[in-house]
């Protein structure tokens, strides 16, 4: 399979000392790469650096082209949709408006309508909440809205920052079930940050283990599942 996203020597931070020290990682076309690591290891920072939300150095290639240094909105327009931590929905706007915003840069109206139908089939609950302000949705529904909005960009790559955060067990299953369907049916590639390592490794085909801003282990998800250190720290068995 071809490489869709490739980062080399990625170094980034928030003005102080760098949080990432020369990270290298890749996501295959249609593949899912999971980022594992302790709190503060730099997982969220990687996602932010990849889509230009913070200053970073290093080389990032998406579909063969350099995207490092581009502004966030330009990166989004190339087909990278980021579902950030805290979900980033527009709390004051309705569900409908949030979804319309997901496709705001697209001109192919017929395809947008089809994608909207697809997103609502994936998350039927959003249809019931159509005219409700996003801020009044439950946590699970907000996460669904955030993912659905990201899908309306018709992305080739989804960046997901802790999609299970704050969700009840049932809601977590619902969201991860939808992600698995997306992967299987639409072939959307994903870079996934998730503390629930068992869930993440179920969905992923590759995984990177981060420690204090460096990749210390990476490989097939199945191999990481068997790794003793990963099992102890992330899977608890």
């Amino acid at each position, binding site marked *: 399979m071809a490489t869709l996203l490739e980062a080399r020597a990625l170094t980034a931070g928030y003005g102080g000392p760098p949080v990432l020290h020369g990270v290298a990682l890749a996501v295959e076309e249609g593949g899912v790469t999971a980022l*594992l690591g302790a709190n503060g290891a730099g997982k969220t920072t990687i996602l932010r650096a990849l889509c230009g939300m913070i200053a970073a150095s290093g080389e990032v290639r998406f579909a063969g082209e350099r995207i490092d240094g581009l502004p966030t909105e330009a990166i989004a327009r190339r087909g990278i949709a980021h579902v950030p931590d805290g979900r980033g929905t527009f709390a004051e706007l309705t569900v409908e408006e949030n979804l319309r915003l997901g496709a705001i840069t697209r001109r192919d109206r017929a395809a947008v309508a089809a994608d909207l139908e697809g997103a609502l089939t994936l998350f039927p609950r959003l249809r019931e909440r159509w005219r409700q302000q996003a801020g009044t949705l439950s946590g699970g529904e907000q996460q669904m809205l955030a993912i659905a909005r990201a899908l309306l960009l018709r992305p080739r790559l989804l960046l997901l920052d802790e999609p299970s955060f704050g969700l*009840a067990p049932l809601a977590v299953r619902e969201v991860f079930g939808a992600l698995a369907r997306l992967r299987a049916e639409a072939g959307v590639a994903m870079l996934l940050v998730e503390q*629930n390592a068992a869930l993440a490794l179920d969905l992923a085909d590759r995984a990177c283990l981060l420690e204090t801003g460096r990749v210390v282990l990476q490989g097939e998800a199945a191999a990481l599942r068997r790794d003793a250190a990963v099992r102890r720290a992330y*899977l608890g068995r």
Partner: protein
Amino acid sequence: MAAPAATPPPLLEVEGVVVRFGGVVALAGVSFEVGHREIRGLIGPNGSGKTTLFNCISGLCRPAAGEIRFEGVALSRVPRHARARLGIGRTFQHTALFRSLTVRENVLAGAHPLAGSGFLANALRLGGRVRREEREAEETARRLLALLSLEAVADAPVGRLPFGTQKRVELARALAAGPKLLLLDEPAGGLNHEEVYRLARLLFRIRREFELSILLVEHHMHLVTSVSDRVVALDFGEKIADGTPEAVRAEPAVIRAYLGEGAAAHGDAA
């Protein structure tokens, strides 16, 4: 006239609390209690009323009916700002810290409600009392920073710290006010397995050293079951189960509304 030496009231009594937002019933007459030095789990699907209940206890929201008593005192007659002084502390799911202040300053701000000498004395920096209170607050902050392994970042602005660390800062700030009851909103959010294990030990230690009770909202079922003495489960604003963690987990209504069938396969692996 001495009161009969009956058992003292529970630390917190929630009795028939009803909250409505417009036409939506957020809490439909919920009752339960939290004992002294008890860790009480509170679970339920997103939107089932857990946070609303927290808000009622901490004073951000006023029940339409029912009453909440803290050490026998009806909270409906205690204004919000006085509740911290009464001994109720809380943390938030997404944290509510002063982002540009340092970790130490945030914790010191938490110690403020203890200071009894009042606004005027503080403003004029009157006498030895204010200075003594300040010294005590700094001592408390030092102790808490050590307990929560925050010494290394004590002088860093909170906004720059990773989320999990911010959650510990918020816990330290809540503890600085010397609460008798701690309301924790998803303390395990964003933590991996090993970190959750450490958090569980920390909660036990806090209960022992500070002699307090904890009401814990958490979706991490492994944490809830391993630390809680008893668990309450809510769904659509109603209590659907109340009892030991094992009993609540086995309750069909809880499995249907919250855990999902065959949840043991996934929920626990977290």
